[in-house]
């Protein structure tokens, strides 16, 4: 009896945090798959970086002022996303402006974090995520945010794809491309805010871009690509967690390594498309 109890308890704990980690990862990729497709189609990778890097500033500000971290991060991410979208809309030297914003935001965030006691030592968890430490509250945020983003994307799908293909065609069909861009911006800010605990600020945009880029090689339609990106993301989460468990590698980066490996494996298929 006693032996069963002592061996039983750790197994249950293991299951518990692993299940939470798996669920958190799946929640993020559920929305990151289709959203990542738009990031690839619209060449918004830098945009994701800028928003994610600003999230570190959001974390520092929230912890510094004792505000709820998710709300604070979301607020700063939205402001940053709006700023970047505004610059991109004006179409002037966007590359440079985005570079300045993305790296500037990260640097300011890191400096701000150094003033917050407790965050200084904990910074790695925010930069690279700590999926194995995800709590039930985190799960609620992740799944809430992911379902909200997924809902937004499904609701606006036809209009967004049309506006992505050609803005003139979209306008002629009564679609307002600026509005669709704004919704994408908002979706991006939400995903960044809820995923920061899971994969961290530095790797959020990797989780958006890499599965979608991998899916491109095997996809024949926008919808197919979105579904495949989600599946590739889910497999990456699984592989990353397994690697983390058995080889004691950092979980967030392991997930991205798995996604990158899948991308490389699917690369040769790209040329075979008719």
């Amino acid at each position, binding site marked *: 009896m006693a032996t069963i109890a002592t061996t039983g308890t750790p197994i249950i704990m293991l299951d518990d945090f692993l299940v939470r980690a798996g669920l958190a990862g799946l929640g993020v990729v559920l929305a990151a798959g289709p959203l990542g497709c738009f990031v690839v189609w619209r060449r918004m990778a830098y945009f994701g970086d800028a928003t994610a890097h600003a999230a570190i500033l959001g974390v520092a500000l929230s912890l510094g002022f004792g505000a709820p971290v998710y709300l604070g991060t979301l607020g700063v991410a939205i402001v940053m996303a709006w700023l970047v979208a505004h610059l991109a809309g004006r179409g002037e030297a966007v590359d440079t402006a985005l570079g300045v914003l993305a790296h500037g935001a990260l640097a300011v965030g890191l400096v701000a974090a150094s003033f917050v006691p407790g965050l200084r030592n904990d910074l790695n968890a925010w930069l690279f995520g700590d999926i194995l430490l995800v709590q039930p509250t985190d799960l609620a945020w992740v799944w809430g945010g992911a379902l909200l983003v997924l809902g937004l994307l499904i609701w606006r799908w036809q209009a967004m794809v049309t506006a992505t293909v050609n803005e003139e*065609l979209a306008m002629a*069909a009564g*679609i307002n491309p600026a509005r669709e861009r704004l919704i994408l911006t908002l979706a991006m800010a939400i995903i960044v805010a809820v995923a920061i605990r899971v994969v961290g600020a530095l790797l959020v945009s990797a989780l958006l871009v890499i599965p979608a880029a991998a899916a491109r090689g095997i*996809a024949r339609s926008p919808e197919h690509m979105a579904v495949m990106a989600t599946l590739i993301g889910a497999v990456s989460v699984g592989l990353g967690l397994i690697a983390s468990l058995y080889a004691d590698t950092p979980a967030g980066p392991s997930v991205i390594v798995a996604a990158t490996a899948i991308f490389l494996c699917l690369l040769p298929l790209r040329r075979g*498309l008719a």
Partner: protein
Amino acid sequence: MRAEITRPAPLIEARDLTVRLRGADQPILKDVSFNVLPGEIVTVVGPNGSGKSTLVRAVLGHVAAESGEVIRRKGLRIGYVPQRVHVDDRIPMSVRRFLSLPERVSDAEAGAALARTGVDGLQDRQITRLSGGQFQRVLLARALLHRPELLVLDEPTQGLDQPGIVAFYRLIEEIRRATGAAVLMVSHDLLVVMRASDHVICLNGHVCCHGTPQAVSEAPEYQALFGADSAQTLALYRHHHDHDHDGRGHHRHHGDAHHHA
């Protein structure tokens, strides 16, 4: 006594339209007025920067008028082929899927539209794998999907070779005949396009001259804009032209022996 001819209400009526692009000193369009009547092919010609594309955008309501107005007939269905559509290779998109953006259409509707523009059978082909001519025909098919009363085409033959251009305009005339849709198009292809038009508007920020293709090609304003080439256009045009117009965009054929080269 001649019966009173009642003219049909125009599909599009531009009245003293003036448009200024954001940040520009001068308006790109100044006091432009014209009509597009049902079933009529109206072509806008003009040099680069003359405001042709802006005119199209104003007709579609994509840019606001500074003064004047564009009146679209109530409930007017417009099919639109924009200038230089480029579908990025990053987005996987078959011809069939493209036709269902943003409104989903049935396979039968998609097939009928593609057949009308001569590219039926390309449904499963990826957009990025089409030739320039095929893609233009797919764009035209997409514009035809919702039974348009007016087709708006902005330089639809860009990137096509000479035979491709001639074939494309022949297709436009054929579609007009078959569907009765009016056509408003912007073009660079002076010679071919004028042969295919009922009414030509020569634009250079303002309307330099307009009227039947023949009248326009003879106008000094037109010849001043297009230089020595325009004289040749005129000669070729006359050579091939064996019908004339009553000046209001109505076609009148002399007898029934007429050929468009």
